[in-house]
């Protein structure tokens, strides 16, 4: 069990050992980078094909099945198509910024993977402010989106970029607020510590994952909603809403640069999904001690794939929101609920000293009730809100 669990760590150590001593730190870094890029690059390719197949199945279609067996080589065909297409830069575009925007989006996203623990002893760097690093890096993508939209000199691109920024900034708030109870529970900003804080079981059968507490469940839901919005996934994909904005900030991109944006978006989704696994689903931990024969990175992959499937499922189901719905959903629903969740989390720990019979059930009931009441109430308020009065301040 241990050998299989640590196989990647051991392989990395062995390969590092082959290099001369002064170069070893560099080699270790390069290996970690290469490993991450290989795994998540493949993951990107695999996700694109499976997403299309699953979407097809959910709409009673077959999905792509032409290239290779069962269409599994479709990503390669897509890649060849993308990379051999002409790279068009609009005549009036700001060439330098237009060129830099895809890079500015993709590079930080790759960096974000550095702090995520994908298995036991398997994170590229273990920063003690890991999650802060993650969010700091993630905030750079807003600027990249703006660069793309502005440099294209296209009103659809600019509108798409503005929408994307408004959306990313709005949903970053519930994203971070949903994370805070987890950080408080673990008492650390290091993702490795957060995973370790979720080890063990309650009464031998229920894993001590954050998602299995009232505040964790609510936080997980909030986090996933905000994550979908952060990574421009359906139903929050209106920055590139093709029916109204052509392709938003991607309008003027083609060929390799478009492929980079596409890659960046999927990698962003992967990163934030991996973070959700780490924060709420116990990271690489097996659910029960009896299941620890399965390697930790395997557990991580299982949870990760399940969440990616959830995203695809939601994408197949829900229609796109309107912009004002999107923003009021963030500010009038998610943010207040995340704040309530914070209080529930504190109450949960404060009540952990209760020792009378059925204390756990009572705590659960209280926590769930405290969350359900604002949920219903805010939901009602959101639905019966006054009609939005549109006035377009800067479109005269």
């Amino acid at each position: 069990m241990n050998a299989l669990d640590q196989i990647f760590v051991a392989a990395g150590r062995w390969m590092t050992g082959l290099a001369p001593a002064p170069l070893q730190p560099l080699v270790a870094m390069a290996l970690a980078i290469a490993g991450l890029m290989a795994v998540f690059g493949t993951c990107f390719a695999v996700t694109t094909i499976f997403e299309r197949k699953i979407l097809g199945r959910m709409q009673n279609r077959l999905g792509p099945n032409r290239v290779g067996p069962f269409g599994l080589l479709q990503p390669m065909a897509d890649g060849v198509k993308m990379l051999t297409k002409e790279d068009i830069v609009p005549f009036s575009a700001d060439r330098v910024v237009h060129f830099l925007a895809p890079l500015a989006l993709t590079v930080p996203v790759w960096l974000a993977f550095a702090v995520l623990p994908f298995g036991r002893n398997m994170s590229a760097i273990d920063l003690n402010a890991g999650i802060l690093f993650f969010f700091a890096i993630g905030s750079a993508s807003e600027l990249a989106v703006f660069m793309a939209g502005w440099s294209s000199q296209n009103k659809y691109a600019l509108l798409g970029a503005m929408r994307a920024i408004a959306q990313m900034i709005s949903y970053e708030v519930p994203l971070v607020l949903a994370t805070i109870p987890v950080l408080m529970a673990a008492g650390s900003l290091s993702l490795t510590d957060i995973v370790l804080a979720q080890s063990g079981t309650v009464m031998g059968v229920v894993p001590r994952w954050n998602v299995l507490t009232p505040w964790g469940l609510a936080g997980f839901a909030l986090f996933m909603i905000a994550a979908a919005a952060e990574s421009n996934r359906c139903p929050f994909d209106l920055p590139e809403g093709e029916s109204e904005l052509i392709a938003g900030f991607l309008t003027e991109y083609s060929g390799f640069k478009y492929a980079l944006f596409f890659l960046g978006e999927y990698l962003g989704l992967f990163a934030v999904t991996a973070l959700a696994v780490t924060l709420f689903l116990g990271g690489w931990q097996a659910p029960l001690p009896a299941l620890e024969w399965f390697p930790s990175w395997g557990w991580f992959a299982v949870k990760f794939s399940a969440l990616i499937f959830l995203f695809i499922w939601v994408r197949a189901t829900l229609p796109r929101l309107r912009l004002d719905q999107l923003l009021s959903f963030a500010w009038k629903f998610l943010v207040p609920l995340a704040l309530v969740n914070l209080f529930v989390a504190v109450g949960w720990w404060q009540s952990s000293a209760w020792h009378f019979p059925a204390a756990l059930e009572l705590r659960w009931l209280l926590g769930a009730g405290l969350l359900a009441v604002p949920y219903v109430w805010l939901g009602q308020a959101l639905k019966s809100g006054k009609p939005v009065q549109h006035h377009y301040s800067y479109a005269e």
Partner: protein
Amino acid sequence: MLGRGIIKGLWETGRNFCGSYYDPARLTTVQYPEAKLAPWENARTVPFLVYDGKDAIAGLRCTACTICEQECPAHCIEIVKDTAKRADYLGKMQLQPKVFDIDAMVCMSCGICAEVCPFDSIKMDQVFDLAGGSRSMMLTLKELAKSNEYFRLIHPTEAAVVDAARAEEQRKAQAKKAAASPALPNAPATSPVSAAPARAATPAVA
């Protein structure tokens, strides 16, 4: 309550996802080159010329009257009349086309040519994978001429009407002929269409 619609929607898509694996009837996709949907009976693409019997040129119904050429809004039909004449299914001597070209690139599938044809000769085809390697898609007489059996196959209702009408005319013509000169032997091929479709309309001049 907020979210009930989401749950319902997720349930529906989830059911589709699982259902499409165990119930192939759910899948609506027809995988085109291997499997094709039968076209609707009234579907039409480019025109073609109907001939009777075995020989495409000899059995051609077209009499080179050029009505279709004149009526075609896109001017995609070009007919050159032949000088020689030949007898049609009623025994009348008719002209025949020497050249009959349809530029399928220009044709817009309106079907006016088929409407105006008094000889039920030009009809609308149903071939639709017409993509080719060149910009020219000039259909000549050789490609245009298709048998009556083919016509029956693609437009059974219309073909039955046309065949019945032609058999009736033929019958009348023969009756007239018989009345005029009873001594002469009968012209061959008068069997009704429905009885033996494959051998029904043997050319009158055979």
